[in-house]
């Protein structure tokens, strides 16, 4: 639901990263890393990005999203594993006070410009 704001931030960060001296830059692809636990819906983000990128160097750029799995570590027994559902209990010990390692990223890693 907040993908419009995320798309806006993406465009701002991308625009700031394009060298100022470039004439008519055209971005072909934005590479993103999005954690599977982050509250981002891909088609909603793409839709918002398409609207907001009109008449900018990012118009028609593709969002290439690498989804980052949710991984956690149990504080009690130090077991690390990938969480694939909503349950975060440690499969090895009953306690299972877990720490998130990955899965909440919303990052822009790079952009690719047309030659």
């Amino acid at each position, binding site marked *: 639901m907040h993908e419009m704001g995320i798309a806006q*931030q993406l465009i701002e960060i991308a625009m700031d990263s394009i060298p100022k001296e470039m004439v008519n830059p055209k971005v072909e692809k934005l590479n993103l890393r999005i954690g599977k636990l982050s509250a981002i819906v891909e088609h909603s983000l793409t839709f918002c990005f398409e609207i907001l990128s009109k008449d900018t160097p990012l118009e028609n750029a593709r969002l290439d999203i690498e989804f980052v799995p949710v991984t956690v570590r149990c504080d009690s027994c130090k077991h690390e594993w990938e969480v694939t559902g909503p349950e975060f209990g440690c499969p090895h010990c009953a*306690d299972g006070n877990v720490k998130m390692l990955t899965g909440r990223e919303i990052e822009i890693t790079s952009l*690719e*410009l047309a030659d």
Partner: protein
Amino acid sequence: MEINIQKRVLEANETQAQKNRNFFKDQNVFVINMMSSPGSGKTQTLCRTLEKLMPAIRTGVIVGDICTTNDADRLAVTGVKVTQINTDQFGGDCHLSANLIFDAAKKLGCDDLDLLIVENIGNLVCPAEFDIGEDVRVVVLSVTEGEDKPLKYPLMFRVADAAILNKIDLLPYLDFDAPLAVDNMKKVHSRLPVFEISAKTQEGFEPWIEWIKLKVFEKTGR
């Protein structure tokens, strides 16, 4: 040509949230971010909570809604210092961001407060993603919702520091399985303290009030 960026998209919000955290520390005020789905009884829970905390704990409230000042009006009856944020002025956002909280906290004034409670916009998805510089996050679930809500919205229950199960006075009339709902919360977040209360009858409030008092004391020494 590829340009390397490596930047967190929510960095601007995170930076502001840290600024808020420093501000709240300087003001020596403890901050609770209360979140829930719409209609879980957040405002009613807050009204009862404020009656029990004040005047011993000097409390202020920032309340967020897309539209209307209804919640602020209801809270003002308790005598609490309250300010309302309406996000329709900012594009009808579904969450409160750190910069809105900073402006609202300045407007409200925190120097005479021990506790600031932010009643976030009713939504179990987006507010979980946005740090506002709070000390703790509390999620409210009510027995008129599904027992599986924690499993459907795991991020919200993962990031919460405590949960409230509200409207327990309705349990005799519903098929709601309260132990299952609590169990589902613990599946997502095993050490989550859960307070089972009724904001209508005020049943179960004591442990919740004691928890807040302890947290406020731990930070502010008051």
